[in-house]
């Protein structure tokens, strides 16, 4: 992404961001509330389209193809770029229907293919063993952590290249958080993951690279180890050492 800026109405939330996100790694966006990191994430799969007054300038590209143009098919884009939200949001359907939802939209599948796909996605999200006997029961009956893993399975089932995660653990208890974090580390080999988080320990635990945002600007970007141990900017140092934010 180059010189990327975004506005909500007259309010500029992101100023001229330049950032490369490496493939098959986990990239964490950190920064205080309101610094624009979630907004940036929501631009990558164009979730901001449905918000009145949201607009952006600059360029945002995935493997060299532009994502912001009017001609971009957001439906096709979102198949390539999956997203997991802050709060688990399973549909009020069965576990199986939740996982199969996206795949049914994008592909014409036989029943056997679908069953296989559901199993693969649930296994990838480390949920299969817990739910394999009750695929038909309502997803809303699962615990919070299970629901979030179901949402990850749901996103994986459409076979994306990139997975965006918007504070995926903020609504969960520590144990569920640990299991999601383990999952993220596992998924790294096959997907490019961008995770927004408030929790610096989490960023340091799961990510390969980290980008620090402050008041709509990208302050610093680098490998996670370097950014946390020897930040080059004063603001980054203050933030990661917990002096503000």
């Amino acid at each position: 992404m180059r010189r990327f800026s975004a506005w909500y109405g007259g309010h500029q939330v992101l100023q001229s961001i330049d950032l490369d996100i490496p493939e098959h790694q986990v990239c964490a966006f950190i920064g205080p509330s309101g610094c624009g990191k979630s907004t940036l994430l929501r631009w990558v799969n164009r979730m901001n389209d449905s918000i009145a007054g949201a607009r952006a300038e600059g360029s945002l590209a995935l493997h060299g193809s532009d994502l912001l143009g009017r001609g971009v098919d957001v439906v096709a884009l979102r198949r390539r770029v999956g997203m997991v939200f802050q709060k688990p949001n399973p549909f009020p359907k069965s576990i199986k229907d939740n996982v199969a939802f996206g795949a049914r939209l994008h592909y014409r599948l036989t029943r056997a293919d679908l069953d296989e796909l559901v199993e693969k996605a649930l296994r990838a999200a480390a949920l299969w063993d817990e739910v394999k006997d009750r695929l038909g029961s309502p997803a809303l009956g699962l615990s919070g952590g299970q629901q979030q893993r179901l949402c990850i399975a749901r996103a994986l089932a459409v076979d994306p290249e990139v997975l965006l995660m918007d504070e995926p653990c903020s609504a969960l208890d520590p144990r569920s958080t640990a299991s999601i974090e383990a999952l993220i580390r596992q998924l790294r080999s096959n997907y490019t993951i961008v995770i927004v988080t408030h929790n610096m320990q989490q960023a340091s635990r799961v990510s390969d690279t980290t980008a620090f945002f402050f008041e709509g600007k990208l302050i610093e970007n680098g490998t996670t180890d370097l950014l946390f141990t020897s930040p080059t900017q004063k603001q980054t140092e203050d933030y990661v050492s917990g002096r503000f934010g």
Partner: protein
Amino acid sequence: MTSLPASTPFLSPRARPARVRLRAAVEWIIESILFLLTVLSVATTVAIFLILVRETWGFFTMRGADGQVLVPIADFLGDSIWSPLLSNPPRFGVASLVSGTLLVTAIAAAFALPLGLLTAVYLSEYAPQRVRSVLKSLLEILAGIPTVVYGFFALTFITPNLLQPLSSSFGTHSAMSAGIAVGIMILPIVSSLAEDALRAVPQSLRDGSLALGSTKAETILRVVIPAALSGIVASFLLAITRAIGETMIVALAAGGGVAQLTANPAAQVQTMTAYMVQVFLGDAPAGGVEYQSSYAVAFTLFAFTFVMTWIGALILRRYREVYE
């Protein structure tokens, strides 16, 4: 009860404690009055039911000069002809009236349910804020118009301007004309209640679906509408209940007092409610068998609407999805 201390630092020494026992009595009296009011409004249903049962029983036990029961229940339910005033002996097969009611209701539902739901979807998912508020107030106006006005509209607009140019088989009165007018009447019920149900679906579900790459329409059809289904079905049932009980529109537009068992939308029909209007307008002498028959018809009507309301309440209670 303990009385307050004679004075506290904040009170003037002249202040006296309120009379505690009197206060308790007032509390008791007020609660009793409110309870009585509540009982009174509940008693309404019971009273309606009892009167209908008593008078319907009276109808089925009326005996003619020869001591025979005039209208056995089997005839009421089994006969296909309803002709209490014109034929001799009079025939009381309620099926004709029920079919009239169902035909008009079916036409109204076929018109209003899909249209109302689509309007609700437009309001909740697509319409820009300003369009939405204007549209909602227009629908509110539609909901506030007295039903007799829709009857007038059916006679002076729907029949001559919409139906008669379409086919010469439409006379002044027809099930179709009444059905469309009833449909317009129940449209705002569907659209406003269904919209409430759709808006109660949390945004996070829409986001989740969009993020998986579904189009807006796929999100609406596969996530939003299924999630709001109980509320939508309840709105349908309420609208159908209103259509079944609607009186003035059908009394004006559906037919001239001839009941017949038919599914032809161009035909004149008589509904249960329209028959009651005919009786109470004075076509039948009070106390006679025709007059009394209106209670049996009312009982049938009441049973229909009661079951519909009951199913609606059941669906809402059983299937309502609770979101945070």
